[in-house]
């Protein structure tokens, strides 16, 4: 019974929060002797095969409706905004190569990264800055956000579709050997 109350607290906190709640925050609300991860696993299993699931988003947790019942939930027609081809490409490059600098993205696409595409990704809150690369000039690097994981229903970046195949085929390598093809050289 005393264990149940902690699970209830975790359940209520995640339910009430307007964004995913991290393990750390949950732990701070519970007595030290509570094993938050265990409680979460148990809670998650309670919500298995239900209309609402407990989803892990990075190191955080949120309730989301089960994809199986989506067709019954056309609650609101959201405005469908087009993600430009360039923005989509940049998003996948950042997702699969993170952390990555702007110059590296430009190398891969052979063209410069337009401000518009990037702003689109920032506006959608899918991409965020992640420190600086330790090379001359210390360029800023980017990565995908927790919201990106949430939006695409991924538990972690490791769950990106086709990640292991891409890795195995060597396509996630950054250095392309001869630099003739680098945009820098082409542009100069």
């Amino acid at each position, binding site marked *: 019974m005393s264990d149940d109350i902690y699970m209830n607290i975790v359940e209520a906190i995640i*339910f*009430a*929060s*307007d*964004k995913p709640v991290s393990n750390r925050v949950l732990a701070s609300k519970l007595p030290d002797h509570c094993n938050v991860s265990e409680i979460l696993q148990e809670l998650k299993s309670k919500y298995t095969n239900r209309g609402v699931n407990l*989803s892990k988003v990075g190191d955080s947790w*949120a*309730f*989301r*409706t*089960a*994809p199986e019942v*989506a067709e019954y939930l056309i*609650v609101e027609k*959201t*405005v*469908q*905004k*087009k*993600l*430009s*081809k*360039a923005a*989509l*490409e940049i*998003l*996948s*490059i950042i*997702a*699969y190569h993170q952390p990555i600098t702007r110059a590296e993205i430009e190398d*891969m*696409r*052979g*063209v410069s990264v337009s401000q518009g595409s990037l702003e*689109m990704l920032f506006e*959608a*809150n899918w991409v965020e800055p992640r420190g600086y690369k330790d090379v001359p000039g210390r360029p800023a690097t980017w990565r995908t956000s927790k*919201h990106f994981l*949430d*939006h*695409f*229903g*991924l538990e972690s970046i490791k769950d*990106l*579709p*086709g990640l292991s195949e*891409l890795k195995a*085929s*060597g*396509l*996630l*390598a950054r250095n*392309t*050997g*001869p630099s*003739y*093809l680098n*945009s820098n050289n*082409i*542009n100069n």
Partner: protein
Amino acid sequence: MEELHNNFITSQDSNKNEDLEIIESDDLFLNLEGFDGPIDLLLELAKKQKVDLYNISILELAEQYIKYIENVKKLNLEIATEYLVMAAWIAFLKSRILLPEEEEEEVSSEEMSEALAFQLRRLDAMRRVGNDLFELKLLHRDRFSKGINIEEKKIINFEDNTNLSDLIISYSALIRSQNLTDYVPKLKKLETIEVALSRLNKMMNSHQDWTQLSLFLPKGLDIRKSVYDCSVLAATFSASLELVKKGEIELKQSVPFGDIFLRPKVGGKHE
């Protein structure tokens, strides 16, 4: 936290296929607008070979690219430099592939070809996974978040921002604004005729004969120093005139500026 509820969908541009057809039909209506730069064009040309990207012919690709750019050039002189630089590089690569390998070259044509092929495969892979991403169970499309926003009870700590001087300045401004009233001169206290009259009336009873008016003044009056004392003198004189008017007393003064005497009038109230 604001959440964008816009679902993004991918735009699969249809004009790209048209471009390919244009290339194939050798039609001269070429343009580069459908392409995101030379690599993009190269990738589309490579895909046109209809083989696995691992087996594309770089030589054929180089020829097609040069041909395509030449055709565009005929029509439109304003080709972005990057397409021309790539054309030059591709031409160079083509010559390297065709000519026998020379020993002193730093990079072999094979390595160069492989680097190009790799870049094309990688870009193609990024496009594919980009589309795969949108096949996932998307939030607001396949999965929904809690609809009702439950009021969380919040404790808000105002971080150090409002400090004591803010408080004091605010209070001072408030007090200051309240002090901004119109100027009202301080009224001087003066003896009224009514007061002098009642004193005169009281004292009259004990004086039946001519009596100096100055004896009816309060003791210790100093008209040189005090405005109030002056007003007592003036009020007393005015009061005496008032009593004369009422027919209760008589006044007399033998010379200008001389002493003034008064006595109850015969048949008057004070007799």
